[in-house]
């Protein structure tokens, strides 16, 4: 999945975290986080729940000041409002009775932060239609957003984030409440967006498997610490054991990855299924 990386200076990175630590209520929830996201790259932020993924997002969005370290967005230090970031939050709840259509929600992505009433300028409607088409949601444009399915609402929110032409798209656990088919559709859509529009995508998830086909790099978060690199570099027993602070095994079966806590006293093991072996049962990733 990875291409050879040309020598690029740090300024070209869309996002760069360096030595970021965060304390909340007296506890250190993030320790020395460092990774970089380059333009057009598809990066996964993987880790179990509670590891610190949402905190990292809040730091990137400028909602949580880091206790230590630096964050550069588009080469510039954090600001309250970074126009180059498009954000899709995790649990957005749309009341089914709410009188807002999909196109209204997408339109708010363009100018919802500005005062006043949206004017009837033709340009706005076209931009909204274009975005809806980009996420295959044209047929949903005039539907009440609260009545859409989880996957459809997801797409509307992605269009909402995309319409402001961001350079970095941040998605917080977008796959968490989707069934397997919708999950695949969203991943494919995001990969296409990253590729065609050269937008960097940083998506957090607790299961790495749905993202394996499209991910360029990943950042693994566990117990407030991170390791970043390619899948092959990061998803290894010794790396993850160091992060978790306990023995962890990594199993690969049929191209899927399974991370399990290791046996007592044993050092971590990385297993690969031998080609030509008997058909192993399909492994569904654990929470």
């Amino acid at each position: 999945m990875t291409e050879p990386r040309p020598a690029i200076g740090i300024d070209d990175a869309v996002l760069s975290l360096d030595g970021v630590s965060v304390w909340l209520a007296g506890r250190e929830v993030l320790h020395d986080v460092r990774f970089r996201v380059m333009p057009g790259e598809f990066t996964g932020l993987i880790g179990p729940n509670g590891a610190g993924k949402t905190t990292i997002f809040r730091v990137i969005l400028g909602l949580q000041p880091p206790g230590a370290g630096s964050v550069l967005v588009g080469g510039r230090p954090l600001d309250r409002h970074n126009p180059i970031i498009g954000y899709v939050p995790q649990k957005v709840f749309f009341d089914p009775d709410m009188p807002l259509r999909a196109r209204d929600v997408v339109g708010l992505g363009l100018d919802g932060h500005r005062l006043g009433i949206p004017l009837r300028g033709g340009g706005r409607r076209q931009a909204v239609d274009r975005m809806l088409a980009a996420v295959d949601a044209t047929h949903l444009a005039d539907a009440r957003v609260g009545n859409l399915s989880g996957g459809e609402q997801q797409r509307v929110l992605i269009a909402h984030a995309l319409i402001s032409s961001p350079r970095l798209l941040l998605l917080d656990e977008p796959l968490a409440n989707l069934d397997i088919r919708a999950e695949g559709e969203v991943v494919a859509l995001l990969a296409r967006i990253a590729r065609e529009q050269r937008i960097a995508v940083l998506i957090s998830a607790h299961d790495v498997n749905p993202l394996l086909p499209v991910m360029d790099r990943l950042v693994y978060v566990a117990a407030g610490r991170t390791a970043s690199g390619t899948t092959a570099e990061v998803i290894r027993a010794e790396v993850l054991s160091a992060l978790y602070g306990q023995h962890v095994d990594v199993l690969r079966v049929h191209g899927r990855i399974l991370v399990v806590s290791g046996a007592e006293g044993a050092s971590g093991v990385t297993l690969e299924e031998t080609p030509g072996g008997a058909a192993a049962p399909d492994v569904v990733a654990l929470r």
Partner: protein
Amino acid sequence: MFSSFMVNTWIAASMVAVIAGVVGFFVVLRGSAFAAHAIPHGSFGGAAGAVLLGVNTILGLGIFAVGGALGIGWLSRRGRHDVATALALVLMLGLGSLFLSFSVEYAGAVYSLLFGEVLGVPSDDLLPMAGLGIACILAIAVLYRPLLLTSITPEVAEARGVRPGRIETGFLLVVALASTMTVPVVGVLLMFSLMIGPAATARSFTSSPLPAIALSVAIALIIVWFGIAIAYVTNYPVGFFVGTLGALSYGSARVWAARRRSRRVGASPGDDGPRLQLTAPLLRAAPPGR
């Protein structure tokens, strides 16, 4: 009932209905029903204080309403929102009972303050009412987009530099402004009914925000006109009709919407898609397909 005597009432009531319809749309959208009830209700304490001091009641209403809105905002930052609203409300009413105990106020005046009075609109009040009303509409127009954005995705709003807390306080101030003008006709207790009923009803008929606001205004006007007409004839309080008609209109809209939904056959997008928000992680292991 259309004598020159009553003209003021019709004009005032129409203004109240328009404001209530517009502001009410956002009250329902944001789930601010409690605050929309608490602010006018608590402002009653200010009216009692105004009577005690011999000042115009509108002034007392306004000061307490604004104070209530700010108080709710302040307390919300330190605790739950509904707790903040309840505490602000009881504090204002507690002060109201204090002021009331000191003044020699006719119980009838208290009653019409609370529940509305058909016959009591002096011409002098119409212009200030109109001014307040226009101020409300302008404020809503200015806050329109951030209000919508913070209503659906406060996190995204925050990320774009909008402060949801400030927008909420601003909105509550608009509610305070709107409730200040309601006394002559509808009464502090039932103003909020006029804000909620029509707006909640309108949602069943349209999916777009601007038509919903227009419909909300229309329904509010119908309810108020109806209420005044019957109140004039029967002498029963206007508030009774406003409260019950508001609930009735919402109820009938819900029944109508439910019947229309059950008559539709296939699932078209935007209608009956499965709601996956509350799905437990257990579902991940299920076979694919919606």
